């Protein structure tokens, strides 16, 4: 049955949301980690920060708006959600452009974040 051990998982989501299904499948896997009651943190970087853009309407290109699912993470006590400052800045995104509040961290801090987790997943 359920494995009693717990690992700290870090999700690094690096891809734009709608050009491939990879980011969406990343969320599916993340929700499975949540279902296994593992402590999970999420960091959006590179083109992954586009997933946090508010007011998306991807139905117009035939894609599902799966990014609407990220705010549900709070229900399951996933609160450690980060976005990399440099990735946001390079793409002209400000915090008020995002669909939910996240912690903005410097690129230099990511190493320590990875260090603080047992399993680092990249999507």
């Amino acid at each position, binding site marked *: 049955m359920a494995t009693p051990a717990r690992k700290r998982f870090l999700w690094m989501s690096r891809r734009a949301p709608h050009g491939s299904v990879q980011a969406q499948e990343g*969320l*599916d896997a993340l*929700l*499975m980690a*949540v*279902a*296994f009651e593992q402590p999970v943190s999420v960091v959006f970087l590179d083109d992954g920060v586009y997933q946090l853009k508010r007011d998306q309407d991807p139905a117009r290109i035939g894609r*599902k*708006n*799966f990014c*609407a*699912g990220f*705010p*549900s993470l709070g*229900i*399951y006590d996933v609160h450690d959600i980060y976005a990399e400052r440099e990735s946001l800045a390079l793409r002209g995104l400000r915090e008020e452009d995002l669909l939910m509040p996240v912690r903005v961290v410097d690129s230099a801090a990511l190493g320590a974040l990875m260090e603080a987790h047992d399993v680092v997943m990249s999507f």
Partner: protein
Amino acid sequence: MTLTVEGRVLETDPEGYLRRLEDWDEDVARAMARADDIELDENHWEVLQFLKEYYEQYQLAPPVRVLTRAIAKRLGRDKGSSRYLYRLFPDGPAKQACRYAGLPKPTNCI
């Protein structure tokens, strides 16, 4: 496979989920339940309503294993229990209630 609701013939997959989610209305839920010998009462509808709102807001169904947690947060601890939910939906709240509520078939089930 098909489901007939008030003269409309709707396509379903082999497990009875709607092929086209936009076919859903309350009569569809009632017809699906009747086929399982369940008469939907206000407690059923409360759960179905919760699932529909959740799906509308987040564009996904609550993950199966933590469905009870999500329900407990919204509807209260007494209703967010497997015992309560299985009494309402004997085939499992995730499978059966999602089907009645017109949500996509859960894929994160295994």
